[in-house]
């Protein structure tokens, strides 16, 4: 007989961490740590001798710069976009370091699973691609985004409305929700399987077969942890590549 049914904790209790001091909780601490670690690693890498073969920190930094250049900038913006590498690199590193604590033992909380950080990043990207659009195309940027060249006059009201909503509202909203919901879903899955394993281990039961059953959720937990390693990287990659696509389309409306 099971003493009591498995009860999932309230969503607030798995997401809200206690305040370290007023209006600064552990999620904010993770975000600050991500920013500091990223900056320090790249400053350290920058201070190494550039003429010898790279090793250690510099190797890591160089390969990540190369990844951003070849995997993201060259694929989406071409050679003209190489000036955006620093911005995209810092975005990528910050998001990745915010995602990664989701699977680091003891911490187990991705900072991006709270709406605030993805939303702020998406607003930053929104401001940047709007700014790039105005800088490259002047005030014509507004009409270009609303009516892409070659739209028949009869369709202008319809296309205008759709493009207006998709460029100015849906883009930042979907950037936010994509990152936030992916990390939140992963976090909830990990919590569910960890709790299932724990409640099966500690179950007070006469059924001899029930306790060994805990290997099933345990396997799932291990598999999901491995999956989250991939997701943390993939979401940072997708956020960065979409940013590159949006900036590229503002700079060169024809493609």
């Amino acid at each position, binding site marked *: 007989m099971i003493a009591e049914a498995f009860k999932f904790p*309230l*969503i607030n209790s798995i997401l809200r961490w206690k305040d370290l001091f007023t209006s600064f909780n552990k999620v904010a601490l993770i975000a600050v740590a991500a920013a500091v670690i990223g900056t320090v690693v790249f400053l350290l890498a920058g201070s190494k001798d550039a003429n010898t073969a790279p090793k250690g920190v510099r190797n890591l930094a160089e390969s990540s710069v190369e990844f951003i250049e070849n*995997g*993201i900038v060259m*694929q*989406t913006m071409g050679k003209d976009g190489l000036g955006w590498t620093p911005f995209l690199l810092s975005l990528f590193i910050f998001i990745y370091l915010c995602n990664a604590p989701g699977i680091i033992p003891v911490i187990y909380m991705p900072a991006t699973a709270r709406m605030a950080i993805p939303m702020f990043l998406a607003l930053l990207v929104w401001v940047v691609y709007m700014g790039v659009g105005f800088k490259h195309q002047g005030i014509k940027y507004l009409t270009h985004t609303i009516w892409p060249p070659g739209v028949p006059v009869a369709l202008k009201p319809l296309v205008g409305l759709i493009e207006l909503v998709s460029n100015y509202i849906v883009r930042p909203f*979907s950037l936010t*929700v*994509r990152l*936030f*919901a*992916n990390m*939140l*879903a992963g976090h909830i899955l990990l919590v569910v399987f960890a709790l299932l394993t724990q409640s099966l281990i500690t179950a007070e039961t006469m059924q001899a077969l029930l306790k060994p059953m805990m290997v099933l959720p345990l396997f799932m937990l291990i598999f999901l942890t491995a999956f989250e390693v991939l997701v943390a990287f*993939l979401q940072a*990659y*997708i956020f960065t*590549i*979409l940013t590159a*696509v949006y900036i590229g389309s503002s700079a060169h409306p024809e493609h």
Partner: protein
Amino acid sequence: MEAFAHLVAATGLTADEQKAAAAASSAGFAYGLAAIGPGIGIGYLVGKSVEAMARQPEAAGMVRTTMFLGIAFTEALALIGFVVFILIGL
């Protein structure tokens, strides 16, 4: 949903509990329905990308980038469903 509402009404719960029961079940429906379309979409998209990469391995890098872009857009629908699930269910 009509039948479910009758079923809940027949249990003799209070109005608040009935509302919570209906919310919990519709949260499940919301996520389940939202996952159908993106599931088909991502499957088709990745399948076609693998086909393209197998036919033309030298274009694999470009196909992969475009595939991730497509996945990101398709997946957004399922994720909005997930957010709605959280919002209704809790």
